[in-house]
């Protein structure tokens, strides 16, 4: 007599609501809670480095401009994707991504491994007007990035907030965030050495937008694009990777 039981339930708003909460909670709990057993979910990658302050600022610009609305950063475990974009994405590669930017629509191509594929110069031209380099593109132009100075003073706060949500930035990294951002975008400045010291020798120091007199939002965004897929080599060394994986060095 489920129908009779239900008629009783319909007589009490509180009971009904509790039943809704109970029914609706199960799925989420079963699927989400186990994901926090990190060891099973996220592979180990000892060589994983953190975003530098400049790259993090670039990431925030990527979020602000809504690049994720048209570009994914998640190469699926499908042959054609691996051949087109590179080794499929591992969970560890977005381990420090708050939020993740996997995306859900590819109006443009995937960007998970865009780092190192093009020169800084190409990126700057492309962002200034995509149709200058790819005549058929429908991507918006982002001219203002090159003329907008990056707000360096917010960077220590940004790193501190990142640490609060679990990214292991050290005190030194937080303290020097603004200096490091400057040093990464102005090669051979006195601030530059600190960047490789704190973030590793592989960190790319470059005049990303081609101008070293100031640090712009263009510098930050290009620095971020150039590090995508480069934080760890784990994906290239993954034993489960399919045979036809492209050689990372070509």
């Amino acid at each position, binding site marked *: 007599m*489920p*129908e009779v039981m*239900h008629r009783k339930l*319909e*007589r009490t*708003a509180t009971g009904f609501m509790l039943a*809704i909460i109970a*029914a*609706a909670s199960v*799925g989420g709990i079963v*699927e*989400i809670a186990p*994901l926090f057993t990190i060891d*099973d*979910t*996220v592979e180990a990658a000892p060589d994983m480095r953190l975003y530098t302050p400049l790259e993090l600022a670039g990431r925030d610009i990527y*979020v*602000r*401009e*809504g690049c994720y*609305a*048209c570009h994914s950063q*998640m190469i*699926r475990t*499908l042959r*054609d*994707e691996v*051949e*087109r974009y590179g080794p*499929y994405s*591992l*969970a560890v*590669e*977005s*381990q420090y*991504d*708050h*939020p*993740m*930017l996997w995306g*859900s*629509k*590819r109006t443009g191509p995937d960007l998970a491994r865009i780092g190192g594929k093009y020169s800084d110069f190409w990126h700057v031209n492309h962002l200034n007007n*995509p149709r200058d380099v*790819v005549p*058929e*593109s*429908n*991507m*918006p*132009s*982002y*001219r203002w990035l090159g003329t907008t100075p990056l707000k360096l003073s*917010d960077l220590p706060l*940004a790193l501190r*907030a*990142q640490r*609060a*949500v*679990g990214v292991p930035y050290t005190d030194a990294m937080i303290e020097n965030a603004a200096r490091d951002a400057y040093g990464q975008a102005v090669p051979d400045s006195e601030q530059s050495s600190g960047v490789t010291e704190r973030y590793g020798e592989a960190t790319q120091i470059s005049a990303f937008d081609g101008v070293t007199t100031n640090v712009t939002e263009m510098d930050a965004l290009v620095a971020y694009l150039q590090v995508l897929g480069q934080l760890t080599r784990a994906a290239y060394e993954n034993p489960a990777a399919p045979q036809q994986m492209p050689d990372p060095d070509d």
Partner: protein
Amino acid sequence: MMQLTTGERQLGAIVLIALAILGIAMAAAGRTDVLGIHGAMVLLYSLALLFLLFSSAFGPEPSPARLTRYYDDPIKVGVGLTLFWAIFGMFIGVWAAAQLAWPILNFDTSWASFGRIRPAHTSGVIFGFGGNALITTSFHVVQRTSRARLADQFSPWFVLFGFNLFCLIAVSGYFLGVTQSKEYAEAEWYADIWLVIVWVTYFVLYVRTLALRKEPHIYVANWYYMAFIIVVAILHIVNNLAVPLSFAHAKSYTIWAGVQDSMVQWWYGHNAVAFFLTAGFLAMLYYYLPKRAERPIFSYRLSILSFWGITFFYMWAGSHHLHYTALPHWVQNLGMTFSVMLLVPSWASAGNALLTLNGAWHKVRDDATLRFIMMAAFFYGLSTFEGSFLAIRPVNSLSHYTDWTVGHVHAGALGWVAMITFGSLYTLVPAIWKRERMYSAALVEVHFWLALVGTLIYVFAMWNSGIIQGLMWRTYSPDNTLVYSFLDTLLAMYPYYIARAFGGLLFLIGAIVAAYNIWMTVRAPSAAQLPLDEDLPASDRPLDGAAPTPAE
């Protein structure tokens, strides 16, 4: 016109002054940040409402007789807000669609670039249009089906204006570059906190009104509104947990990272579809369909089955957004399985609706309003079938990342969400303003065809482009290399992007026609002053007539 008592006016003034002070504080603390702009907006918004309140503040006390009638004033304002957001959100949609075909249409400005207006479109239509429609109709339905007046006169206004403040902050934020990037949860932390306050008030108001009901049973439409209110609160809070840079900054970082974030986000995202774009609109279906068709719901059992099926199954399905990604395999499989099972309660609802029309098909033929509701049920069936299909891993490997998803979304959004809303509005407006009928039946008919043709053009264009693109991405030559560059596949999209913009334009024109028709209905003098007791709770039931309705 608001019928507020002196006490309620005072409470309103206090709340608005507190809000104004909050706005000043935000503006001062965030003066070097975009937060400051939002502070100024909060200030202006509360001052404008204060002005409205004061302009009627010194009127006489409303007569106690009002308590014997329904409280419909917030509903009237809600109808206007719904229509405003419909036109705004769809206009941005058409603009976004046009930008994909002609990228210069952002005029080289930052605020109008595609990545910023796209969330303005989605939030504008989902929260602005959909949310206002849900709040407005829920105020109507809960009173009629409970035969009780809203529990008080302050909280409906707080909910309505508070919710619209949230929408305003959210949407203006995207133009300014304020976003968390989480799809359908882009609004930043301060807007999110505000929404929690509004939502709790909404919940309490709803429950208090239900408690006053003169019907022993809670009508089925209210089950869905309750599920909508409760589950959206849970989803919203969990997905939006974040740490701001400081209280003077708009920017925050979510506490969730990487793969966990992806699962939390799509658990949220999919259930925003389920409990915002589905459950609430099913509530509309369960009230306005039997009302308009003047027939009881076909089966009470099916109603129960589909309600609990939807409430339970949907929450498992989010991981179908993450097939073949770095999310563990078993979660993907669970998501797929439950998505397919979800078809059963979904089709039970759609079938229940269509079978309710049995014996009323001649009305469907003659009455464009009922046809809107019928079409909505049909598109609901279609998009849930499509959704369950897309959730199957191999199918998803083709459809994911392509326009097929966008086609599915708009089969649901235009065909289901928007059509059921317009059908409900055309039923609600004459009832609330006490007109015999809409100003022009012909215009409802015109709107219906614009909406239907617009939806079909949109959806077919996206099915084509999505499937073509998905297939091109994976086409191999005989010597085992990929045939098409990404650019080749983009070039193939342009004709469809143009077609979609055109279909969307038709749909937008339909919404403008609706707004005009409703405006004229409101302005027309009520032809026959309906006798006063028509308005008494007792007379307005979801289903009049001899046959006791199964769900009551």
